[in-house]
């Protein structure tokens, strides 16, 4: 039978399943060429993993999503994740769609997969949409902490950057308090620029040394700031 073209194995398999012969139905379905017909039947036969694999094989992301949605509502989260971990395509689709809608799912996913940097970045992104500076700093601390036990070598660099982020925000907060101008959210270079322009070069030099801004870069920042302040002295 299998060398005959154009036989709809879906219909045969469905009949077999209706007769209560599930294994036979699954075997028959392997011959069905059209994934669009295979997958829904497999799902209704509770052959979820097989349905997912067939969907992935077809490359039709709509089908893959469809199976994933079904599985997510059916399975406990941990086994859902375990199922994802061996299927990179499905995993990246879940990730992409959760990025905008379901951040807690992402957190769990990254935690389960030991992806410390991804977890930390997620918290950093939360910090960016925080309603206030204090919550932002809290999120940054959390983000920093998630990296603590990671073995990933780049985690060290990430941690350094996250510390600097907090350091800068705190410095900006106190600048805003002392000098009555907004500094929060500016980049370090912009902060230096604004300080110099407004005549606080001492504070600027302090920041420069705190953050180890290279001399050459700092010279450029000073030059541009003084020119824009028309201070040619």
């Amino acid at each position: 039978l299998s060398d005959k073209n154009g036989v709809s194995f879906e219909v045969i398999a469905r009949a077999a399943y209706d007769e209560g012969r599930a294994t036979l139905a699954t075997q028959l379905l392997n011959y069905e060429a059209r994934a669009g017909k295979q997958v829904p039947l497999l799902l209704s036969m509770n052959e979820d993993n097989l349905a997912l694999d067939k969907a992935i094989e077809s490359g039709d992301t709509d089908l893959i999503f469809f199976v994933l949605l079904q599985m997510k509502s059916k399975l406990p989260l941990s086994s859902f994740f375990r199922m994802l971990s061996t299927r990179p395509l499905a995993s990246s689709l879940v990730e992409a769609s959760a990025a905008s809608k379901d951040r807690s799912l992402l957190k769990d996913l990254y935690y389960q997969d030991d992806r410390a940097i991804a977890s930390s970045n997620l918290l950093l992104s939360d910090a960016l949409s925080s309603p206030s500076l204090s919550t932002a700093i809290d999120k940054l601390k959390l983000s920093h902490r998630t990296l603590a036990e990671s073995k990933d070598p780049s985690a060290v660099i990430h941690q350094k950057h996250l510390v600097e982020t907090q350091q800068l925000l705190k410095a900006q907060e106190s600048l805003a308090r002392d000098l009555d101008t907004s500094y929060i959210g500016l980049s370090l270079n912009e902060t230096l620029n604004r300080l110099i322009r407004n005549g606080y070069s001492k504070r600027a030099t302090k920041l420069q040394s705190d953050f180890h801004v290279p001399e050459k870069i700092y010279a450029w920042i000073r030059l541009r700031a003084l020119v824009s302040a028309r201070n040619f002295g």
Partner: protein
Amino acid sequence: MLNYADQIKEKVRKDLLNLLEGVRGKKNLVVDEDLAGPLGLVSKYSTLQQYGVDKVFFLERKNIDASQKNVVFLSRGESADRALAIAEQIKRLQQESQIEHEFSVFIAPRRTLVANKIFEEAGVLGDISVEEFPLYFLPMDVDVLSLELEHSFADLFLHRDPTCIYTAARALMLVQQKHGLFPRIIGKGDGAHRLMEMLFRMRTEASVDDKSTKSTLGTLPSAVIESLIIIDRDVDFGTVLLTQLTYDGLLDEVLGIKDNQIEADTAIVGPPPGQQNATTQSALKRKLTIDSSDKLYEQLRDANFAVIGPLLNKVARRLQTDMQNRHSNMTTAELRQFVNNLPGLQAEQQSLKVHTGLAEDMMKFTRNTTFTRVLEIQQNLAAGVDPSTQHDAIEELIAKDTPLLTVLRLLCLESCFFGGLKAKDLEHFKTLILQAYGYQHILTLDALERMQLLFVRTGNIFSNATSQATTVSKTNYNYLRKTLRLLVDEVNESEPNDIAYVYSGYAPLSVRLVQCVLQKQYLLSFTKSSSSGSSSSKSQPPSTPGISSAAHGWQGFEDALKAAKGQTFNKIQKGADEAVTKARAVLGGGGTGGKKTVVVFFVGGITRAEIAALRLLERDNPIRDILICTTSIITGNKMIDAALEARTFGGYGE
């Protein structure tokens, strides 16, 4: 040449209008913003009005009113967000409106299970009629088809979501349905490979449907198409990161071209014709359509920017003499002739004014010191100069607060061309960038890393020329620069003789790969003489005359392909039914042997400079037409922009 573009335009238009006709009476149309531009390519607002469209709303604005009973949604169906937004709007209207509405939802390009589920869960599925709107390729020009999937680059390389490859496969299936199977599918890159596999899979799926539903996929190899060449973008990121130097490319770099339109200052291009008096309008920007219907633009677009001045000058002179001729007119017949030509001349004059304005604006841009600095760094990196000599210049650009996109493009360029940055250098630049542009860009840098645009150099990646049999993970430009002669010093910009003219001396690798298939002779002619007996030319026989028409696929360039990222393949599609093939060969006298079309598909986007290069390739190729297909048209900025974190830490109430 087969006019695919017009056929497709007509089909999309008809499909849309048929769907609109299916909804009786007047209706309000709701489109998503991404789709509005592409639709403008196939249909005018006035046509829509004739088909009963009263008002057009954008889905994203959430401001649909209840003025019409019929509400028609038109949206891309691949995105779950859109389906959610539609469901939300339907529910809102149902609650707020006095009258019973009839809702129709047209989903492009196909109805999806996910969208269905969303409608079902929102409880609106029963109240709406859902139709498919098979919108795939959009004709950007007679020789360019684009799926116009704006986010396809980010989807593919950042989110690893291959939906657009699936869409591409469906789109190409439609081409096969109409014109027959691609006799040969040649490609490079993993995404390209996946696309090829899907095409084969869909063919078997279709053959099953064929028997049961009597649909008609041609089962014969096409007589009008020679082959399909698929190039994956990630084989050659480097090219996109360089600044495009054709007129068209530069316009895209500076102003951005979207759906064949650009927005330019009225100060540059003058007010739109017929509106000179309407000064009350504060229209500082003017939308201009630029495509090959503008004859002047057609001449200019693919030219290297350096020769635009002289070109414009020549046209201006010719126009002037044309206009002056009227003074010397004598007979009434000649006068009538002149008056008849007048509208054409005026249109030309108008177009000349516009392009002179634009060219001046570009000129201003290219004379900027930052631009020249950036270009210099790019040229050095492309030429393979030790990248560490460029680091001072990049540092200076950062210190001078040059736009972040520009800086990142340079760093990614170095990363792509040299197989990564040294760990120490990369860390140094990361710190500089975070300090200069804000710590939110930790996320940007991370995204670039995930996209394989900016990464640390590791020893083994770089020494990969031909050693392993398996595919390499990074394209080795260093090796290919020589083997495929990516650098051409003596390129002629006014009378281009090599595709390298589009980047003033650098030949895009992507198009060189296409040449490996289509212009073997040409490529061999110079790699032969310059490769000084290195390993590259050993593998093929020294005498090459026979190779031109007989050799297909990648033959002769296997070594070069090994040094580029991803899988290489070359598949042949045979007719399903040998008997039928034979029958046709007898009846049709074995084909006409006329000009055939080669379809070149770029997965993940193509630049306008590459399009220009492919057009040059076509011009020099008397036996083939080239049809360019892509998921979208991109620029380096769009590429980096996909990774860019837009939020800052300053968003709190002061």
